């Protein structure tokens, strides 16, 4: 499995032409996700499948559609030797470093000695949900997760800022909805129309099932967004913008963060520390449940909205390039 990963990476180096590289990136994403399944990291595999094999190749594709797929020849001769030398030396140093690491899979490695046993043993009683990953993510380390959600939100804002045309105020509107002639592709459109509702429904299932099985806000957001992106790819940007207006999405991205933050503030007002859910109900387990559901909802909304926003920004750029 891992050797396959290396082979893909090597092929990525050798392949010229960006479209081919992107196909390989997608395959690479699938491969690493399968690897995560074998390593028991189901939640991670979930995310990587949706992100590494789905959204990130799509964004790369949109970029390539804007900037063109030609790639210059790599440097030859002495200029090419320098990176190889640098890489080899760094790699060799790192390999020497690994010799001190605990063997793979050992149960007594230092990683497994500190907080992890506590999470595994106590979370069943304290939080009361089976998926330990979710309870660590949304309860024990909720503060970290808040930071990460903010990073995602900021990234969305940055993309909007970077791609906004000069002089634009407020959210973008499509000015030339009739300018782009759209080639219908009936069979694919009809089948996708059937599939997209299931996709969105499945995203909701992932969102609310995240406490019992693999899943949660991050995964659900990405799946939801990729359903919308599929709709946009097939029916064109104007149609999808009419169904889900960009200003609404932008507001939703903020609302998601707000839900997360408010959950923390409410717990402050209730007299305990930030993001400590103990105040939401008399029974601590129920309280934890309420807190986790709120937070996951905030995460899901933010992630979905930010990715849709990013897609809108890129797709609009691409449409402008076309007309």
């Amino acid at each position, binding site marked *: 499995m891992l050797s396959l990963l290396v082979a893909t990476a090597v092929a990525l180096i050798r392949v010229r032409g960006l*479209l081919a590289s992107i196909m390989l990136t997608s*395959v690479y994403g699938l491969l690493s*996700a399968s690897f995560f399944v074998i390593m028991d990291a*189901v939640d991670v*595999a979930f995310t990587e*499948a949706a992100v590494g094999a789905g959204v990130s190749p799509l964004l790369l594709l949109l970029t390539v559609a804007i900037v063109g797929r030609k790639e210059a020849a790599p440097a030859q001769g002495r200029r090419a030797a320098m990176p190889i030398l640098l890489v080899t030396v760094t790699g060799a140093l790192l390999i020497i470093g690994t010799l001190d690491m605990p063997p793979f899979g050992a149960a007594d490695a230092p990683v497994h000695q500190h907080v992890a046993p506590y999470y595994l043993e106590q979370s069943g009683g304290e939080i009361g949900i089976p998926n330990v990953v979710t309870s660590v993510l949304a309860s024990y380390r909720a503060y970290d997760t808040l930071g990460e959600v903010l990073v995602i939100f900021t990234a969305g804002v940055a993309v909007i800022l970077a791609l906004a045309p000069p002089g634009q105020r407020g959210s973008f509107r499509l000015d030339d909805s009739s300018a782009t002639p759209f080639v219908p592709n009936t069979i694919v459109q009809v089948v996708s129309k059937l599939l997209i509702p299931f996709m969105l429904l499945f995203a909701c299932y992932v969102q609310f099932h995240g406490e019992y099985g693999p899943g949660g806000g991050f995964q659900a957001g990405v799946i939801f967004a990729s359903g919308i992106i599929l709709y946009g*790819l097939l029916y064109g940007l104007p149609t999808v913008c009419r169904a889900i207006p960009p200003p609404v999405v932008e507001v939703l991205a903020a609302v998601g963060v707000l839900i997360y933050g408010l959950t923390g503030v409410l717990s402050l007002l209730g007299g305990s520390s930030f993001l400590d859910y103990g105040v939401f109900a008399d029974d601590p387990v129920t309280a934890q449940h309420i807190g986790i559901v709120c937070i996951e909802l905030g995460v899901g909304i933010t992630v979905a909205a930010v990715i849709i926003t990013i897609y809108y920004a890129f797709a609009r750029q691409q449409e402008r390039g076309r007309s």
Partner: protein
Amino acid sequence: MLALTVVVILLVMLVALARAFTAPNVFDRVLAANLFGTKTVLLIAALSYLSGSPDHLDIAVVYALINFISVIGVLRVTEWRREQRQNAVEE
């Protein structure tokens, strides 16, 4: 039998991967990637039964969805390029 199926799926994945590396044009590559993706769905499903943890089936569902999306995505981009070229010819 399950183990044999897993081995066969891995073999086919290997073939698809090799093909994706050496494919002569974009469409062959997409075909190989698509084949690879559907085989991954099967692999995850079979593996989840082999290890007795049916939770993993969720992941297989996601794969089935995502794979379709990425194939469609690539094809749309090639179509856009064709449109561009046609527009350039017309002007």
